[in-house]
């Protein structure tokens, strides 16, 4: 089947040959234009669209190979399939035909069916290529649109989260002031508001941190700091929440000084302790270990919670991955550990989780220390 608008340009210096080819092709349903030189062919090709060019090789003036070469050098028409007709020996003609950028070769004399078969194959192949190219362009346009959309979405959520921190800070500060002036139940309620507002603020900050980290803005500044001080700082901010669920902290902290980015390390530890407190059963102990040894700075946070299934130990450090079935209730959005991973990596370290023989999870961070 051929569509009426498939157009073939036949180029041959012999009017007789032109007529023969034209007759065959028209009987096959093609629209045919004939010209008798390479120069004329180029002129017509510049003005009109063709689906196939059939070029005689031996012509006075521009020969078939030269004409093809010129077609291939003009971007607007370079794609058109070219079929050579030649009285030369097929073997002799093949190499120059390829060299000139031709697509196929038909020795003269030929049968109608041979011509029709090659014409159809070349046109079909050309059309498929064009369709693929168009589809590819459409896909890459869609891809680009999606990328822009994703970028806008990220920016928008970043702005929203940024703007949330003002009101959250106001809730927090006011509750803190109330807590200081109140006694009994009122003080306890105000205290709860403080803890809740801190958690909101932490989530908002995790989101912002993560965006910055993903945009490659986490650049670690190494400094020397005291491990006991850092750990005490983290533990004290978590005590309020730990009291709710009757969790006790057990600290096993080396007295060494560590060399790392203090702020990133503090946030990392805070996230890990926060997770442990959230997942540990009531009345249990969360162990925090920190020391510098031959392996570098090693932080460990151990809890008696449900632990992390073996299948999840890698995935859990990805953004939005959480083991909680209902993330909206647990207040866990899969941001904290993603941040921890980026923060560890920004310092040349790594983070992983170990199973405590079914007794809960042990999160470990190792950050290499500069050679003494």
């Amino acid at each position, binding site marked *: 089947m051929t569509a009426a608008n498939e157009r073939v340009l036949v180029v041959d210096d012999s009017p007789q040959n032109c007529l023969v080819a034209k007759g065959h092709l028209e009987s096959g349903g093609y629209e045919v234009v004939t010209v008798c030189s390479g120069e004329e062919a180029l002129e017509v090709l510049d003005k009109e669209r063709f689906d196939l060019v059939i070029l005689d090789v031996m012509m006075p003036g521009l020969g078939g190979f030269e004409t093809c070469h010129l077609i291939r050098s003009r971007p607007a028409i370079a794609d058109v399939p070219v079929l050579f007709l030649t009285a030369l020996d097929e073997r002799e003609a093949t190499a120059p035909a390829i060299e000139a950028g031709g697509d196929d070769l038909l020795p003269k004399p030929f049968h109608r069916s041979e011509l029709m078969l090659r014409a159809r194959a070349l046109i079909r192949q050309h059309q498929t290529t064009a369709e693929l190219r168009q589809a590819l362009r459409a896909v890459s346009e869609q891809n680009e649109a999606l990328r822009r959309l994703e970028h806008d979405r990220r920016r928008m959520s970043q702005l929203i989260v*940024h*703007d949330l*921190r*003002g*009101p*959250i*800070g*106001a809730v*927090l*500060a*006011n509750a*803190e*002031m109330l807590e*200081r002036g109140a006694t009994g139940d009122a003080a306890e309620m105000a205290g709860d508001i403080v803890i809740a*507002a801190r958690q909101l*603020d932490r989530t908002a900050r995790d989101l*912002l*941190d993560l965006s*910055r980290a993903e945009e490659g*803005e*986490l*650049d*670690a*500044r190494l400094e020397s700091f005291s491990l006991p001080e850092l750990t005490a700082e983290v533990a004290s901010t978590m005590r309020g929440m730990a009291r709710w669920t009757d969790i006790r902290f057990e600290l096993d902290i080396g007295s060494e000084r560590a060399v790392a*980015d*203090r*702020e*990133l390390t503090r946030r990392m530890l805070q996230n890990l302790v926060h997770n442990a407190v959230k997942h540990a059963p009531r009345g249990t102990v969360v162990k925090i270990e920190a020391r510098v040894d031959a392996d570098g700075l090693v932080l460990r946070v151990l809890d008696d919670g449900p632990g992390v299934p073996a299948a999840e130990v890698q995935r859990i450090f990805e953004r939005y991955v959480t083991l909680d079935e209902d993330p909206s209730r647990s207040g866990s959005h899969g941001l904290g550990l993603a941040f921890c991973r980026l923060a560890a990596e920004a310092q040349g370290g790594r983070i992983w989780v170990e199973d405590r023989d079914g007794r809960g999870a042990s999160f470990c961070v190792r950050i290499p220390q500069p050679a003494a």
Partner: protein
Amino acid sequence: MAKVLVVEDDPWSQRIVCELLEMRGHEVLAASDVAAARAALAKQPQVVLLDIHIPGGGGELLLAEIRASETYARLPVIALTASAMSGDRERFLRQGFTAYMSKPIDVKSFGPTIENYVQEGE
């Protein structure tokens, strides 16, 4: 008793900072953008609390103007920022901020900290 200029565009943060200062008996001038802050400087505050992300050029621009002016060059200016990351502290101090505080502010230590800088500036 000190005169404190608070430059902060987030109304909630501005309100809470102003309240905390007023509760301690300080006089507070509030501004939400660079232009208003420039105008408020004429009232001769003794310390400036400056949010980094304020409209009209940002806190860093205002700080540069303050440090370049003859009248206010020695004024204590404290950066307020919600996005404290590693390295920010060094960057702020290098730019000429006297100190920096990250948000959310700590209610207990906020007032005394500011008062320290007022004394240092005198």
